[in-house]
């Protein structure tokens, strides 16, 4: 036996997972409260003693960790045109596992400057202009950032012709120059920026967030938790040399404050004559809905889906649902405690899935012109994806997981939304996805075996 320990420092819980990589299997999981305010090791020690009670004493050969503690990797980004470089900046940051507090477009204003100062991000991603294109905006924004002051690092990934000038403007600040996120019009080049974000996270953020105290215990690999989730989903889809993967998939994590959606798929049109619009889509895409969550952002679900519709799903009167929503919003650690709150919780989760997956998926428009019918696709076509992975308390602690997940499927009444048509629903009941993403860096086969074993298909 060769036991390996995986640690996930979450915003609320520190989760520990023990696995055997020799004969790949899950040995046990446990959690405790995250204690980042005092000493992060206290919560970790607590979780580890609980784990030991379950697994017996283990002599770990390696320990890896990911973290979304202390607010996660808090980023701000600014670009030029909202649909172009600003969108590219956001996509790059989300794909690197960041929590994007806000994305700015065009020239930063005085109000923006005040807001940026108040938000004081962990990293600022400054982009804008294609190579040889607009440089006014990015140099103006560099001047605004210089003016704001602060010590957070700035990653510069805009028009390469303006990079050195921006660097001069920002003299005295920690600046990392990267390749342009949009070197040519309509092309996306986000990997270099994502690598840089990960580097800065490792070198600066881990230290600043009081996570270094734990680092003596950790053999290496420290990443933001969403990056670990993405690594796990990529592994599950693609497989390894020795094992087949599951193919294209979607994963939805319905949390208390946000709902994250991941897709691993090219997402190209079914009909090759379909015209593609908008930015090219990354093969592994992550979107985060900051207004859709089961407690802190519960009102966002009602706002997006409509009280009447959610009430109908729950089989409750709108007034009754409204009161339950208020109670959940005020008591963010409250779990459903009777039939009505359970039904409300499940209906809210269903619509959270529906709204988040609809926003993540692409759209197909039919345009009638003189040349007849023409199809135009924006975003990813996920209609043929057949694996739907779900996690998050409201989906794990219920028997109706498949029903809730099916709200994220293709709907004939909304055929323009390119959501998956027929899916197996797999549920992460033991909450191991992030841990397996960490493990996948050095033990991809063990991680894949355990993922396939632990993600249970819901048969309803």
């Amino acid at each position, binding site marked *: 036996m060769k036991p390996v320990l995986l640690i996930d420092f979450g915003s609320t819980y520190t989760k520990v997972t023990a696995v055997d990589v020799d004969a790949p299997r899950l040995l046990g999981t446990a959690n405790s409260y995250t204690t980042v305010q005092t000493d992060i090791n206290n919560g970790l020690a607590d979780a580890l003693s609980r784990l030991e009670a379950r697994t017996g004493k283990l002599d770990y050969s390696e320990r890896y960790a990911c973290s979304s503690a202390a607010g996660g990797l808090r980023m701000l980004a600014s670009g030029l045109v909202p649909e*172009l*470089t600003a969108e590219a900046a956001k996509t790059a940051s989300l794909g690197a596992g960041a929590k994007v507090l806000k994305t700015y477009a065009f020239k930063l204003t005085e109000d923006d400057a005040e807001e940026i100062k108040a938000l004081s991000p962990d990293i600022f991603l400054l982009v804008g202009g294609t190579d*040889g*294109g*607009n*440089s006014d905006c990015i140099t103006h924004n560099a001047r605004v950032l210089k003016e704001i002051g602060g010590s957070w690092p700035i990653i510069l990934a805009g028009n390469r012709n303006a990079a050195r000038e921006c660097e001069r403007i920002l003299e005295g600040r920690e600046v990392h120059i990267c390749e342009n996120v949009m070197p040519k*019009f309509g092309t996306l080049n986000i990997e270099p920026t994502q690598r840089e974000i990960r580097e800065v996270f490792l070198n600066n953020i881990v230290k600043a967030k009081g996570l270094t105290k734990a680092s003596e215990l950790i053999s290496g690999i420290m990443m933001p938790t969403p990056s670990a989730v993405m690594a796990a989903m990529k592994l599950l889809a693609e497989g390894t040399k020795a094992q087949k993967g599951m193919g294209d998939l979607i994963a939805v994590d319905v949390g208390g404050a946000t709902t994250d959606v991941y897709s691993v798929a090219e997402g190209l049109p079914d009909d090759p004559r379909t015209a593609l619009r908008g930015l090219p889509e990354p093969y592994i895409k992550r979107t985060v809905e900051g207004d859709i969550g089961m407690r802190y952002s519960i009102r966002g679900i009602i706002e997006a889906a409509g009280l009447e519709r959610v009430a109908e799903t729950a089989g409750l009167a709108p007034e009754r649902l409204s009161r339950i929503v208020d109670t959940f919003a005020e008591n963010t650690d409250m779990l459903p405690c009777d039939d009505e709150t359970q039904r409300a919780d499940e209906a809210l989760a269903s619509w959270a899935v529906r709204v988040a997956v609809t926003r993540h998926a692409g759209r197909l428009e039919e345009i009638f*012109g*003189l040349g007849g019918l*023409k199809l135009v696709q924006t975003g990813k076509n996920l209609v043929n994806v057949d694996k739907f992975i779900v996690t998050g308390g409201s989906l794990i602690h219920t028997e109706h997981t498949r029903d809730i997940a099916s709200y994220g499927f293709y709907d004939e009444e909304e055929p323009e939304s390119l959501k998956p048509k027929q899916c197996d629903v797999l549920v992460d009941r033991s909450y191991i996805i992030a841990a397996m993403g960490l493990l996948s860096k050095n033990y991809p086969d063990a991680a894949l075996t355990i993922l396939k074993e632990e993600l249970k298909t819901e048969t309803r």
Partner: protein
Amino acid sequence: MEKKTIVIGVIGADVHAVGNQILYHAFSDAGFNVVNLGVMVSQEEFINAAIETNADAILVSSLYGQGELDCRGLREKCDEAGLDHILLYVGGNIVIGKQPFEEVEQRFRAMGFDRSYPPGTPPEVDIADLKKDLHIED
């Protein structure tokens, strides 16, 4: 000399791709940095592309007769987006029916287009005009 950047594409719900592709090659060969938006391009897409790439001119093609409708308001939106004095050209079958081209040209000039071209104009003509308007010497 630094290459001048131009944005080209076919406006509206128009799917005529061939002529636009010929223009792309002709302008590239003539030494321009060409941002080709392809067919079915909206006014907003022309403008967004011109902003990011800091373009010197937008060349709009229209071949299905709806050009006048599709082009209306483009100059105003350019002004609104801060693309002051960007050159706007339009060409193709930009109107329906047999109309004297001088009248068509006048109408498009009133809409803010610097130059308009009748059907069958060889690319060399617009290339020469563009070089003149952008003060490029051969």
